[in-house]
């Protein structure tokens, strides 16, 4: 007993499945190996105290705590499967595709600037003798179509492993600026039309999406800051 090959506890498997769900394969394998060794040590300890096997197994798994909490913490220090896919992704078409998508990002930015300009012209409209504030949000409708393409562009930008941290950091303020810009355009309508505007207006939803994306990209950058990534230079030898 007490070797990884011969001992099988469904409770431990359940715990490991819960804790490792969504992690990249390399991280999953490492966590599974370490936790299994830990569990077997605990099992030995409880058996040496004279506990029956079933009780020893139960205690050893209980000592690990909540797999959900462990998963939450593991995701902070390990890549998830989707994050690993982003970093390792190599799109076809090489330079041409990337250049096109980067131009596309620039075009979206310029379009939103034009939208701002149109809005400022359209905002004040005379109705009879009264001056009414109007939001011209239609210009932002294309965002709904553009978002998935922007995300693709971001992924392509991030594909160069040697500069992935720097690129991600460059993308973050761009996204935040886009979010702020869209929010600015939509906010006049919010003041006029009340809370419902938050949910019904595409500009505001777009703004929230941009901000959310910016936060996530920045969080991703913080997470991979100290990680060994494909394409990194090997660490200096001889650390004590």
């Amino acid at each position, binding site marked *: 007993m007490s070797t990884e*090959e011969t001992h099988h506890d469904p409770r431990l498997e359940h*715990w490991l499945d819960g804790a490792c769900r969504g992690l990249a394969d390399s991280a999953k394998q490492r966590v599974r190996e*370490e936790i299994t060794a830990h569990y077997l040590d605990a099992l030995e300890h409880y058996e040496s105290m004279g506990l029956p096997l079933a009780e020893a197994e139960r205690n050893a798994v209980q000592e690990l705590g909540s797999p959900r909490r462990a998963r939450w913490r593991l995701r902070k*220090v390990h890549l998830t499967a989707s994050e690993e896919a982003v970093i390792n992704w190599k799109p076809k078409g090489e330079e041409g595709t990337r250049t096109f998508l980067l131009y596309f990002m620039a075009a979206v930015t310029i379009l939103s600037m034009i939208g701002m300009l149109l809005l400022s012209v359209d905002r004040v409209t005379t109705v009879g003798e009264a001056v009414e504030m109007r939001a011209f949000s239609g210009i932002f409708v294309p965002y709904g179509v553009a978002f998935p393409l922007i995300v693709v562009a971001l992924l392509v930008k991030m594909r160069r492993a040697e500069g992935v941290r720097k690129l991600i950091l460059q993308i973050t303020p761009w996204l935040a600026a886009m979010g702020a810009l869209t929010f600015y355009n939509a906010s006049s309508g919010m003041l006029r039309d009340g809370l419902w505007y938050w949910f019904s207006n595409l500009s505001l939803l777009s703004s929230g999406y941009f901000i959310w994306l910016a936060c996530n990209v920045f969080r991703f950058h913080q997470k991979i800051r100290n*990680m060994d990534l494909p394409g990194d230079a090997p660490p200096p030898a001889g*650390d004590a």
Partner: protein
Amino acid sequence: MNLKGTLPVLILRTIEREAKHGYRIAQEIKAQSKGVLDFREGTLYPALHGLEQKGLVKSNERVEKGRTRRYYRLTVDGHKALEKEHKEWKSLSMAVDAVLEGAG
């Protein structure tokens, strides 16, 4: 007792003199604190992996009794970080003691 935020420094202290595997680190923290500092052992590994990413600990695998174990040891940066954290903890602890004892 809630170990929030203090687990990494406790880990660093535990492996200060020799390399240890996760189970032993967990047991030593509990034993040295006489059971007061209790924590769920599944959270030990994210903390260890985080310390490794920061370059404060290094790990290597060893096979013992037919079982693969990963041993963690302190790096030079880890020693410096431990020293710094220890000093900060002492001054914080003294300050809290001073307030608590003076409050009565």
